[in-house]
């Protein structure tokens, strides 16, 4: 927190040179130890997901009926399941599913929220009113319930899952984009742009999108944990990733539950992996939000006093780093 009181001009210069993401990373390492831990957990998830083939000691669905329901041992670190599949390998391949669904669904969700929120906020008026009522209506549905309904109609599968999670998350997320755009469009440079006759599409792409990058990054990092958790819940209930594909949620249902007393390791490891990943991703998300958006911060300082002063400096700095380019 001590670095927070550095001269403002210096900071402004520094942040000007670096792209938003690089600056974010450097500040994450310097200022947010818990966020950094979360970031490391997230990187481990990415690494495990990408190199699952190389990391897993056994092939994805390698069945060994002689080694059924083995407790954790030197050979099978996490034990084996009912048909003798290595739990460690299953958990490693499960990371791939979580990673792909989390990243892809969240990316789609961002695209959908920009596609809905940006025009809604920019054009306003009747269009906005109608779109917002639809968003209202969608947000009334308890998440899991509408997701299960739609998944049951589309049928289980990874792509269906990504599309459903992405679109439904995106509709809710459009609110955030909309309010960010409404805040932006009153800026003088937007008015100037309109005055010189820039086409609307160009204004949206050149002036609006670069300026809503911060909320977009926040949405992505805050939302991804929830997406991973929802994927696991859906798979747990049997409406997500179909069984031969190891997914953490799926591993906790079905056989994992039937044999949970005889072979508790079948239920422990996937849940533990899931919890750690969601925990890490949430920590990272919180840290990213704190770094990018001073208004949403969970408060520094106690009963006012000295620390409040520091907070003001931090606020100044954050405002500066939030203005990209010119």
């Amino acid at each position, binding site marked *: 927190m001590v670095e927070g009181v550095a001269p403002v001009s210096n900071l402004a210069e520094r942040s000007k040179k670096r792209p938003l993401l690089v600056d974010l990373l450097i500040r994450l390492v310097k200022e947010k130890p818990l966020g950094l831990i979360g970031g490391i957990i997230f990187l481990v998830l990415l690494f495990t997901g990408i190199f699952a083939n190389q990391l897993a000691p056994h092939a994805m669905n390698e069945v060994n009926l002689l080694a059924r329901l083995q407790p954790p041992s030197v050979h099978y670190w996490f034990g084996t399941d009912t048909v003798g599949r290595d739990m460690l390998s299953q958990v490693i391949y499960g990371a791939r599913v979580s990673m792909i669904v989390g990243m892809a669904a969240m990316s789609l969700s961002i695209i959908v929220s920009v596609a809905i929120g940006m025009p809604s906020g920019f054009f306003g008026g009747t269009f906005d009113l*109608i779109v917002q*009522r*639809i968003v*209202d*209506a*969608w*947000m*009334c*549905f*308890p*998440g*899991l*319930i*509408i997701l*299960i*309904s*739609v998944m*049951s*109609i*589309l*049928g289980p599968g990874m792509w269906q899952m990504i599309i459903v999670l992405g679109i439904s998350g995106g509709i809710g997320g459009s609110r955030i984009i909309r309010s960010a755009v409404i805040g932006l469009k009153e800026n003088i440079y937007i008015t100037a742009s309109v005055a010189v006759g820039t086409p609307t599409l160009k204004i949206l792409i050149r002036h609006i999108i670069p300026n809503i990058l911060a909320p977009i990054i926040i949405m992505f990092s805050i939302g991804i*944990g929830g997406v991973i*958790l929802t994927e*696991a*819940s859906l798979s*747990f*209930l049997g*409406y997500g990733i179909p069984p031969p594909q190891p997914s953490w*949620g799926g591993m*906790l*249902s079905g056989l*994992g*539950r039937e044999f*949970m*007393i005889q072979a*508790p390791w079948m*239920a*422990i490891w996937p*849940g533990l992996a*899931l*919890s*750690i990943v*969601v*925990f890490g991703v*949430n*920590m990272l998300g919180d840290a990213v939000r704190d770094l990018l958006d001073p208004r949403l911060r*969970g*408060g520094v*300082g*106690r*009963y*006012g006093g000295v620390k*409040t002063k520091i907070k003001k400096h931090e606020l100044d700095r954050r405002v500066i780093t939030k203005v990209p380019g010119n």
Partner: protein
Amino acid sequence: MGNYIIRRLILLVPTLFFVTVIVFSMIRLIPGTVVDVLMSELINGGGGSEGGVTPDRALLEQKMGLDVPIHIQYAHWISDIILHGDLGDSLRSQRSVTELMAPKIPVTLELGIMALLLAMVISLPLGVYSAIRQDTGSDYIFRSIAIALIAVPSFWIATMVMVFPSIWWHWTPSTEYIALTHDPWGNIRMLLIPSAILGTSMAGSTMRMTRTMMLEVLRQDYIRTAWAKGLRERVVVLRHALKNAFIPVITIVGMQLPILVGGAVIIEQIFVLPGMGRLMLESINKRDYTLVSGINLLMAVFVLLANLIVDATYGFLDPRIRYR
């Protein structure tokens, strides 16, 4: 205040309209319509009651009211709901959807209310304590607990609650449902564990929200004044800060209701509770789509009304908020 509620009720109409449109079109517009699904299921012999009879697509469509243009279907469907409170008949059993849902509602409602209460009882005091002892050891511990409560999936906690007591003490939580009217005390005892698990994630986020709001309020001028007057900490916190800090917390609780209702599906499934969530999963497994849409509609309306009530309470609790 009265005006505000009336205006909110008027705004409710378009939202409700779109809610019904979503529920209605969910079944009818998604590629691979319900009729296709039912047809292929019947052809593949999974039908059950209709076994042996060649499925008749036209008859099936007629039975579901799908043989007329879509806007007329909607008009039929919505007028049945508004005029008769009739959500249609179940596709599988010949009973009406409302009749099937009625006995399940109290179970889920009770589960939800208990989860809500348990979550509040745990999270509010801990959140407040965390805030007034900011950056101390106990603050860090409570904050970590809060984050863990959010991160650990409820279905895993539920599984672990089944596994470990059974291994260590040969005891498992009862999954035998006891009706409230039959044995109130037994009912509450059996719902205690499921509702505690259902409330975990809500407890976590409420704890964090309470802490944040409390910190915000504690930094305000009138709190400094209260300190300056020489009031004791207890008085400052309980009488001056708490009231203002809790108001935004109520909104967060309201916003979490859909998550709570969704979570009930999982918890009811694990603990075999005969509530809406289980009915939902059963009806999906049986591809009983009129029932599915009935449940969806009911849940959405419930959330909508709950949010309205939360917003109204907001104005009621905080005299500074004037709704025009």
